[in-house]
């Protein structure tokens, strides 16, 4: 499913050609729209020419509708499409600076390329100035690094912000865009051509009617059709994802989890899907309890998506039965480096047993979600088995030791676990390699 991992599937020449071809279309579209002429661009800010507004927001609206259609039909995996991360205030301040540069220089970076390519001297000089500008930024950014990295909100879309379905958000964007075009035409006649209001032609032209009609129609279709749910999206993910379930490469031995917890280059997050009672009886140290519904809430999902790329997230159930559907749904929603702890808590306790006076074995460890141990009281994460990576726990006092210990140290037993053999399954994958023009 699109988008494609071009760096992996294409040779360096074909890779360059794909991006060159996209750039070619970009440059041609800008030139055709008149973006090589600085007077057309600057005219926007004196109500003389609405080309900038119309071309840009038509482009945004058309692309937004096409993207939403592609995801709606399951043709595009949006989780792997780059969404410019929101750094709110640096973006706004940068935008305010650029507005000034736009009016003084009469171009933006992309349009100056097109102007220069058609031999406009002002475009070439603007381009030269822009190269100096990006150099100056590189030289000075370290002095305001704090601001430049501030107000980070990660991957944050209008649909998330408004809490609306994608189709409705796209419809709002489309309606706003075509309303702006209409208002722009009126403003151009009144302010630009100095016509009195009475003589301003109010009705929109045929081009507008055609554009507005098709975009609004497509957005309404999107609203009605909706977007596929995570299960449907999972079903459309590539065969390698399904194979990773069949070949059990998503299941990680507890011993590997323990090894990763010792690795300072990796952050391990364990999400415990069991109910509160089982969690209180025993849970892995540092793990957090969460139901699937909680994990799929907007806030939690955003957190899962926005973890550093060195984070590995494990789902943990009593066995494996409940963890698999959760893995499927979260994977379809783009959570990276997500795995299931093999055999669940049952397997964990088999690998790292608790003392006999704490829990007794009552069942088999076979992947089913039936607890294999019956705890006599709630231990939380106080047992050494909850922290196997700490080979000797000085704080632990075994409840099975005789209460009247001869010396203080004797009751504090140093634990060491046998070294379990396991097949390494965790492969850290970084996120989208292509970040559009802002990389």
């Amino acid at each position, binding site marked *: 499913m*699109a988008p494609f991992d071009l760096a992996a599937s294409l040779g360096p020449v074909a890779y360059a050609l*794909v991006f060159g071809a*996209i750039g070619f*279309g*970009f440059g*041609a*579209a*800008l*030139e055709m*729209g*008149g973006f090589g002429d600085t*007077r057309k661009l600057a005219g*926007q800010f004196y109500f003389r020419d609405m080309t900038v507004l119309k*071309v840009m*927001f*038509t482009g*945004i609206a058309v692309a*937004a509708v096409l*993207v939403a259609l*592609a995801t709606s039909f399951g043709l595009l995996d949006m989780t792997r*499409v780059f*969404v*410019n991360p*929101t750094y*709110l205030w*640096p973006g706004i301040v*940068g*935008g*305010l*600076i*650029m*507005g000034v540069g736009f009016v*003084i220089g*009469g171009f*933006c*970076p*992309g349009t100056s390329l*097109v102007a*220069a390519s058609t031999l406009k001297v*002002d475009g070439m*000089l603007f381009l*030269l*100035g822009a190269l*100096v*500008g*990006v*150099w*100056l*930024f*590189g*030289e000075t950014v370290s002095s305001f690094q704090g601001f430049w990295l501030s107000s980070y909100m990660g991957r944050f879309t209008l*649909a998330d912000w408004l809490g609306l379905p994608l189709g409705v958000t796209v419809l709002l*964007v489309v309606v706003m865009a075509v309303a702006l075009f209409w208002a722009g035409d009126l403003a151009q006649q009144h302010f630009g051509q100095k016509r009195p209001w009475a003589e301003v032609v109010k009705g929109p032209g045929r*081009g*507008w009617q055609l554009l507005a009609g098709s975009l609004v129609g497509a957005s309404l279709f999107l609203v009605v059709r909706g977007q596929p749910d995570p299960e449907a999206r999972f079903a459309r993910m590539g065969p390698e994802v399904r194979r990773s379930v069949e070949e059990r490469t998503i299941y990680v031995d507890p011993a590997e989890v323990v090894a990763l917890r010792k690795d300072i280059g990796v952050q391990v997050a364990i999400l415990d899907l069991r109910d509160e009672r089982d969690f209180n009886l025993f849970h892995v140290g540092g793990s957090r309890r969460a139901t699937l519904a909680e994990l799929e809430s907007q806030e939690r999902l955003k957190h899962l998506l926005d973890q550093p790329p060195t984070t590995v997230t494990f789902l943990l159930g009593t066995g494996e039965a409940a963890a698999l559907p959760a893995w499927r749904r979260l994977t379809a929603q783009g959570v990276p480096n997500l795995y299931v702890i093999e055999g669940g808590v049952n397997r964990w306790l088999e690998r790292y047993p608790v003392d006999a006076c704490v829990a007794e074995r009552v069942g088999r460890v076979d992947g089913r979600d039936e607890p294999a141990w019956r705890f006599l009281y709630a231990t939380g994460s106080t047992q050494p088995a909850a922290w196997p990576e700490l080979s000797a726990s000085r704080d632990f006092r075994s409840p099975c030791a005789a209460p009247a210990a001869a010396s203080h140290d004797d009751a504090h037993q140093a634990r060491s676990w046998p070294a379990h053999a396991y097949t390494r399954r965790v492969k850290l994958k970084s996120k989208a390699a292509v*970040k*559009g*023009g*802002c*990389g």
Partner: protein
Amino acid sequence: MSTNREPRPYANPYVAGTLLGVVLFLSLYVTGGGLGASAAMSRVQTGVLDLLAPGHVDRVAYFAEMAGGSRNPWAHYAVYMLVGTVLGGFVSGLVNRRVKLETRKGPRISVQARWGFALLGGLIMGYGARMARGCTSGQALSGGAVLSVGSWAFAMAVFASAYAVAWFFRRLWT
């Protein structure tokens, strides 16, 4: 390159905009990323700096990320896209008879003044584009199409600021 034939008129903005939207969609669909220009400019600039002062590039974190040590700032998709953009603009200009060595300007300023302001505006624009992590194409257009909140805030800031200062620079354009 110039011809003595009249240049053809520009396309209807809705047609050009639709074409732009389709290209942007194809970029997102095929590569997973949108269009842009400023990232490539930053790489071209860093690449030139790396030829002149490689030690300096290695010491400034912002440049080192692109060209530190043995990293090659040129072998990057944004640079390929930039080359394509220039070619696309050139070919469209050629077909429509708009390739001509000339300076476009407002009626009231001299060519030299226009050159000076183009240079200055470019400098401000380049600085602002890196501050905002993208220019009008990478942030406003591409980020706008994938509905990023930051990109929409950015686009509104650009328009608001340009309209706010336009009156002060009216001599340049009207």
